[in-house]
């Protein structure tokens, strides 16, 4: 594939980027512009909004309308843009701390409203920008500068959080699974509602180093070896527990069970893809009702 396909979406003059050698953020950036390119969207009708963090610096390299906002608040800014300008494609780029900790409230409420924005979460299981503190997705017992004795908090599963909050498109993958990643981003952008693409990405500088997982290639190999689709997890669990009626489980329950049964696996895949009207579409009806009311009050 020609490099021009990607470069025309980028602000080349802003390179080199700020990310460390081996960081996975560039992979996610590439998948995002690849998806946008294939969808043939008008670049001037795309708004990409980010919060604060290493991952949130992605907006600066993209040749669209871009906003680098406040830590945790990208989704709230994006909500204002999308509601005021339904004609624009609104994408949020955010970190696991940005979306899951300080911005957790905006995350669940935008999902609940089925606000038509596509959230691409760069989940590196750590606070990269501030130098390696634990995040709400840092696994229990993992090391970070603020969990020097091992993390005693239980992590959030951001995909499950989105599913149970009402998101209409939810997929998770890793930076190893590039083709799937680009495809999921395409589907997320196409979905008329709240979409999450949670991408597990490597931070060799902090997470990999503190947890002795190794260098970037070793981390990516870890994703390759341990990534397991939900479908595969389901068939594996059925074999493990023939007495359990796994077909009666909803996706949230399955994901929860998979963590218990296959703790070493990273469960990936497309978890939710459904069609449901969201705030922006429903507001169109409010506009009609209000205009009728106005007309009848004048009559």
């Amino acid at each position, binding site marked *: 594939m020609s490099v021009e396909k990607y470069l025309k979406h980028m602000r080349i003059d802003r390179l080199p980027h700020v990310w460390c050698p081996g960081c996975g953020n560039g992979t996610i950036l590439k998948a995002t512009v690849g998806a946008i390119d294939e969808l043939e969207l008008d670049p001037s*009708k795309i708004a990409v909004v980010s919060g604060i963090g290493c991952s949130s610096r992605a907006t600066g390299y993209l040749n669209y309308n871009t906003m680098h906002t406040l830590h945790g608040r990208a989704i709230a800014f994006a909500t204002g843009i999308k509601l005021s300008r339904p004609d624009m494609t609104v994408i949020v780029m955010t970190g696991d701390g940005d979306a899951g900790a300080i911005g957790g409230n905006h995350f669940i409420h935008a999902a609940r409203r089925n606000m038509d924005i596509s959230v691409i979460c760069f989940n590196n299981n750590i606070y990269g920008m501030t130098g390696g503190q634990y995040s709400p997705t840092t696994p229990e017992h993992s090391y970070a500068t603020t969990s020097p004795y091992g993390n005693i908090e239980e992590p959030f599963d951001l995909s499950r959080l989105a599913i149970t909050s009402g998101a209409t498109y939810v997929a998770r993958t890793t930076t190893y699974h590039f083709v799937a990643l680009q495809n999921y981003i395409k589907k997320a952008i196409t979905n008329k509602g709240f979409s999450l693409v949670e991408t597990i990405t490597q931070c060799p500088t902090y997470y990999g180093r503190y947890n002795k997982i190794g260098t970037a290639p070793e981390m990516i190999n870890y994703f390759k070896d341990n990534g397991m689709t939900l479908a595969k997890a389901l068939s594996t669990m059925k074999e493990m527990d023939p007495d359990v009626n796994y077909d009666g489980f909803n996706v949230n329950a399955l994901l929860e069970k998979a963590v218990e049964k296959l703790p070493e696996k990273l469960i990936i895949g497309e978890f939710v893809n459904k069609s449901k009207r969201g705030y922006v579409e429903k507001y169109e009806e409010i506009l009609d009702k209000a205009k009728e009311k106005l007309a009848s009050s004048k009559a």
Partner: protein
Amino acid sequence: MYKAGDYVLMQGDKACALGAIAAGCRFFGGYPITPATEIAETMAEELPKVGGKFIQMEDEIASACSIIGASLSGAKSMTATSGPGFSLMQEAIGYASMTETPCVFVNVMRGGPSTGMPTRISQGDIMQAKWGTHGDHPIIALYPSTVKETYTLIIKAFFLAEHFRTPVIFLMDETLGHMRESFEIPEIDSKFILPRLSGEDLEDEEIYHPFESFNDTTTPLMSMGKSKFHVSGLVHDETGFPMGSSSMAEKLLRQLDKKIRMHRDEITTYEEYMTEDAEILIVAYGTAARAAKRAVKLARVDGMKIGLFRPITIWPFPNARLVKLLQQVDAVLVAELNLGQIFQEVSRLNKQKKLLRLLSRVDGSLIPPEQMLEAITEMRIELDEY
């Protein structure tokens, strides 16, 4: 919906909302809080009638961010809150200031700190309006004192926000927000309704630099989607990109400050009542100024030469006129519903050491005119011995 010339009996909060719509506000993101809730309720009802958008966000942080997003995408936007919510909005107000995004933040003041007295009047957020967000930054804050003035002044708030590309704080108070008064809906001067630049204003191949400045003003804002640009809360150059150089920071911060400071005279407004021959001046603003006006009237009946100076623009403070008045009068009484926030401001200007007294109340009640007269009587005795 009303039209110019309609005679209405209206609550202050509603006048604020309807005035904003008349000013062209087409996006409101808010979160309910006494005594500002009626602004959100009016917006929910009225905005869709003109094609505008309303959303009740999950908190005030989100509300503030949503209006900035909406503004950059092209809609004139506003939020409304009271003390606790205003505290939550501060980080976003700084972002609006740094990104030079026009938007209006209404704060209908109630007793604080913390939950304080939700249903009682206060003027405790005067300094927060100026310094609430971190870092040096300029701000414009306006504060009406009648329901009619609320309607007309919010239109000016939108004009200033667009013209100077800045957040504008619109202060009200519980009494003003909940009070009903009758007035005639005024004709709006179209020069106060500023349109956004459109993409068609650009020459072919011309690149829009959203932060380019010319003679102390920033280039007008172009709506997102008409031209592609980047905004960031980081120190940036005229293209909007972070540069990380210290000379750029120096230039940007001074430029932000200058664009308001150099236009202070255009921005500041105030009302004077019987100041021509005043010997004692009352400085009061917002609802508290209404009782002060009454006190002036009562004092004049008794032959006392009292006048009122009412800042309508709170920030930047109308220094120039007050300095002149300080030269003329013998004494000044600052009457306010806080522990002396504007009193400090007046003290700084009182170079000639005129007799200066503070009459303050923080019990959630207004200062009655009689209490002001008592204070003035005491000041006259003091003046004898001064």
